[in-house]
């Protein structure tokens, strides 16, 4: 599992990029929380075998929320979300909801799909972990070298990208569940990773700098 801090950092960057006039401390907190939310399936893995990077990393929850959001805000006569928007206009609440949903998918699930642990995107309907891994290079000697997508991959699954196994064979260790299997292992050593590599540190540092700049701007506007 990519560190939750990295998901939160990408969520913060998306919040700054997409919230527009709805940007403030409260809406940023919502979008960052949405980015961290998928990692809660690690808690479920204590009871459900192989739930980590599967249960809340599958596309069903965001799909259902997206459909519900679209139906509520565009097709109903009286939108539940717009009427619930306390202390804000309805449009603002709708914008924050869409950005939070994008953050759940792009910042919450995304880093796991592209880095190390992989994601089980259609669990439990189609139980297979996938990882986007490889390279795309133009070489004057070898031409186009592309290894992200190749046919005839080994392992369970149908997509032509790297396959890591099923929820029965591929366990993702987390600090909540160090061996990735059901049951509390209370005496096991636990590791909470904040960042695992250099690029993740850069992403986190960018997000901190971004929020510092943006919050200073909005605070200046308020006092003006």
């Amino acid at each position, binding site marked *: 599992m990519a560190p939750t801090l990295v998901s939160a950092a990408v969520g913060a960057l998306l919040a700054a990029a997409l919230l*527009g006039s709805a940007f403030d401390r409260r809406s940023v907190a919502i979008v960052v929380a949405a980015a961290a939310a998928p990692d809660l399936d690690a808690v479920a893995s204590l009871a459900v075998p192989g739930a980590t990077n599967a249960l809340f990393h599958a596309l069903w929850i965001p799909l259902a929320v997206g459909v519900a959001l679209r139906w509520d805000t565009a097709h109903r006569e009286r939108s539940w979300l717009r009427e619930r928007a306390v202390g804000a206009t309805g449009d603002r609440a709708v914008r924050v909801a869409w950005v939070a949903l994008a953050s759940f998918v792009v910042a919450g699930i995304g880093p796991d*799909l592209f880095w190390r642990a992989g994601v089980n995107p259609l669990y439990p309907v189609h139980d297979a972990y996938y990882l986007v891994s490889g390279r*795309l290079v133009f*070489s004057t000697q070898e031409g186009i070298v592309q290894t992200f997508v190749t046919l005839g991959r080994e392992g369970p699954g149908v997509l032509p990208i790297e396959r890591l196994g099923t929820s029965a064979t591929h366990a993702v260790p987390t600090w909540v569940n160090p061996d990735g299997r059901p049951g509390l292992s209370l005496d096991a050593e636990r590791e909470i990773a904040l960042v695992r*590599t250099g690029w993740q540190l850069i992403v986190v540092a*960018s997000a901190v*700098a971004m929020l510092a700049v943006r919050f200073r701007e909005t605070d200046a506007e308020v006092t003006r």
Partner: protein
Amino acid sequence: MPSTVVHAGFALLLAAGLLGRHYDRRALAALLVIVVVPEVDSFLGPFMPGAHRTVGHTLVFPALAAGLLYYDTRIRDRSLVRSRLDDFERADRWIAVAWVALFAHAFAHVGLDWTHLDGVNVAWPLVDRFVHLDGEVVFSTAEGFTQTFVEVQVDPETGRRAVDAGVTGTTETVHVNNPVEPRDPDEVTEEPVDRRFPVANAGWRLYLIGLGLFTLAARRLQGDV
């Protein structure tokens, strides 16, 4: 280098967060120019050993530019930049874009290259040292809080402290391969020259490209540009 495409992807995400009301095609185009220009130091390689990742990738010049821009637009009575761009609104806009470009250059370009291969010559020409950022920050129940980005070692005999922030060498010893000079000029080999232009050499780099494209598409959907 993580390819220029990867830099551009991450830079677009950062720019969308910072440009505010100045977000439009011209501002983004200017930003992309700032992303590409530092790579020109590859072409200095044949004349100056170790030029790539040095001349265009030091943080000294951006810091200098930021200092000058701040002095000119905030401290001086009559700003040179403002007097050149006579229209107040236009001057405001390009000053803002310049700050965003500096931010994106520092994080999306120098920052990401810092974590790759031999890193960047971050304080050249003041200090000629390539540094490579690599490590992790972990809290474990067995060992507590540990970070391996900067290693501090105390020699038990002399008591001298040695700090290692990932120094990989100087312009004399380091050559970072690039399409202009695909291999170290000091290396003697019969193999044919292979110039490689990477788009993404790892899944996470593809992810950063995707982040930039997603941001562009989402902003478009939201009705901006």
